[in-house]
Every structure is written in structure tokens, then in C-alpha cells.
């Protein structure tokens, strides 16, 4: 298996959202929200983007306060995190204006406690410095953010991460596998995984093992009796059933 980051349709949509935020009309609309159910690859995609764009990445925690957010941001930025809240805010402002470093906040759900106090603090920074801020969370954040009109209006783009499509699974097989994978097996991986990338990758690893033995293109018939992936939700393994004659 090749160690590559595959830019599936979710990443393409995310990049389009970022470009929209960068070419925004309203200068204070500097935020991008990424949301979606677990297993859609939000964290993987955002981590990759943060690494490639040299962003400061923060993971919000339960009970996060504005002060803790500022201290953590200062630590990550490599600036002095001591002193009064006002002094720290001023230092962070000058750092962010000077560097223009984008900010990534994962698990945004934890920023919404106490009347979204942490998000309000982040808004203070992004409004003043016009810093690009990317938030990531699950579907539950949408109505919660919607309750705060002054925060919701700052979002230039809202990107929904969806389960991998058949085309995404085809792309994953083409770019990651070191053997060729036939269309019927791609369809099987897509169906059995329900579009969860992690499960698709497990299936590709199995197909690759078979392909290396047979040194050819791997089809569904070659995987008969093989456990392709394990589904934690149903707690069952996906095993390829024997093909019917003439099928």
C-alpha cells in the first residue's frame, strides 16, 4: 500500500470552501466550517491541510475556556503565554497579524459551552486580524452555531463531509493499491464499507495481498472466503461469499 494522501471529493469540496473564504467579499467572513458524521475523514483531511499550509492546529477539549484557548494558542505559536488576559490577547493579536498563520480548531462542539464563549474569543481574533479559521465538528454543531447569528454570519463556507462515493473508492483503489483492482471488487468495497474510508483501506490491503500472490488484476472472484473488513457497528466481518455458477 502506498503512503499517499488521496484527495477525494470531500477534500476537493473543502479546498473549494477555503478558496471561497480567501476570495470573500465581506472581510470579516473568515471562517470555514467542516461537519459530517464520524468516519468521513474530517480529521485526516483537516490535519493534512494544516500540515501543508503550516496552520496552527488546536483540538478543543471539554471545559475549554477563552483563557485556556489563548494559552494553548500562545504555546503553539511559541510566544509567552503568561501575564494578564489583556496582555496575552495583545501579544496574540500582533503575532497573528504579523504571520497570517491560519487557525484550525478541531472538535468545535467543545467551543460552544457557556454561550459560545470560546468561539466569541476566536471571533475577536479573526475579525481583527482577518485570519482564516477552519472549524471541524459533527452534525450537531450546525443548529448550535445557528443560534449565534453574530458567529454564523462569519462563515464564508460550510462544507459537509459525506461518506465516500463509488468514484472515491475507485480513486482510493487506483492511488493506494500496488495492484490493479477490478470494478466488481471496487463496488463490493463501496457497498460493504458504507463509504467509510478506513474500511475501504482495510479491503484494499486484503486485495493487495491476493494480487501480489497472483501477480495480476484482483477481481471479486479472487477474494472468495476472504475477510475484507470488520464493521464495528454490526460487529461482523465482511467475508466474500462464493460466486454462483454463471455469475
Amino acid at each position: 500500500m502506498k503512503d499517499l494522501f488521496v484527495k477525494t471529493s470531500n477534500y476537493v469540496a473543502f479546498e473549494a470552501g477555503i478558496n471561497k473564504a480567501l476570495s470573500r467579499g465581506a472581510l470579516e467572513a473568515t471562517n470555514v466550517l467542516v461537519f459530517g458524521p464520524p468516519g468521513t475523514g474530517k480529521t485526516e483531511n483537516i490535519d493534512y491541510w494544516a500540515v501543508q499550509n503550516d496552520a496552527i492546529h488546536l483540538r478543543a477539549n471539554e471545559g475549554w475556556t477563552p483563557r485556556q484557548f489563548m494559552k494553548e494558542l500562545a504555546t503553539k505559536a511559541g510566544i509567552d503565554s503568561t501575564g494578564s488576559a489583556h496582555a496575552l490577547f495583545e501579544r496574540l493579536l500582533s503575532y497573528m497579524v504579523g504571520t497570517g498563520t491560519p487557525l484550525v480548531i478541531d472538535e468545535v462542539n467543545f467551543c460552544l459551552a457557556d454561550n459560545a464563549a470560546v468561539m466569541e474569543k476566536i471571533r475577536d481574533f479573526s475579525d481583527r486580524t482577518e485570519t482564516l479559521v477552519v472549524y471541524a465538528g459533527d452534525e450537531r454543531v450546525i443548529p448550535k452555531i445557528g443560534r449565534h447569528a453574530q458567529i454564523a454570519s462569519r462563515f464564508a463556507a460550510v462544507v459537509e463531509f459525506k461518506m465516500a462515493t463509488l468514484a472515491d473508492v475507485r480513486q482510493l483503489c487506483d492511488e493506494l493499491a500496488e495492484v490493479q483492482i477490478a470494478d466488481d471488487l471496487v463496488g463490493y468495497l463501496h457497498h460493504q464499507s458504507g463509504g467509510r474510508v478506513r474500511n475501504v483501506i482495510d479491503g484494499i490491503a486484503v486485495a493487495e495481498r491476493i494480487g501480489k500472490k497472483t501477480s495480476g488484476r484482483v477481481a471479486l472472484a479472487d477474494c472468495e472466503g476472504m475477510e475484507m473488513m470488520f464493521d464495528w457497528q454490526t460487529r461482523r466481518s465482511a467475508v466474500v461469499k462464493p460466486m454462483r455458477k454463471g455469475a
Partner: protein
Amino acid sequence: MPNKPGPKRPHGLPHVIQGTLRQKAWRAMQIKRKFTLADLVRNALAEEDAARDPHNNLRRYVKALTKVGVLHEMPRRAAPASPTSNGEKRWLLVRDLGRLAPVARMNGGVYDPNSEKTLVEIVGGAEASHAE
């Protein structure tokens, strides 16, 4: 005495180039905290990068950081992808030195551009010490 070519004394602080594969790998370590070599390669390598053997490059970088106590090798490996594999090694970032990526020196040790000091190899479980 004839004039000899070349610098007469050190030029000051070591020259550190940022935006490299190792810089990106360092950023990935800071974000992920726990990672395998494959995680680093996947996150650090961009489509347009023409890195030659990034696995080998980052393996040597990780080894150097482990020797000075910045990384710690975890006792449990990642789940293997094939029946004959023991699984990939995993590391934990135990000392986040700062935004600038530490530089592995050819002759041992790691230069930390954040504190402008050199970390020396841990011998016999002692803490990594700084040297000017």
C-alpha cells in the same frame, strides 16, 4: 602568512531552512502526537513534492529525535496490514519544542531553532541536555 580561502569564524546561528519535508513532518507530529512513519509520510508529502525516498528521510529524522528524547517509541505497534507483518512502530511526541522544526545534525545531536540550543543524545536513560 598566505591568505587562506573560506570563512574565518562561524557566521552566527546555524542557517535553518523551513518548509521542507522534515518541517512538514514536524508539524504532523505536533498535530497527531501519536503516529507511525506512514502517517508522517502521508501528511508531509504533497502532490507537487519531488522528495527522494521520503520514508528513509523521515525514518532517520524520527530516529534522531528519539535519541535526544523528543520522541518516545511506544511499546505497542500499529495493527499489521498483512499476516507476516509485526505492524508499524509508533511514536509519541513527548517534548514539543515549538513551531520551528528541530534539525538533526550529521554528527549527532539535534539543533532546536526555537531555543537556539543543541540537544544531545540521551545516554543511559539520562535527560537530554542542552549544549550551546
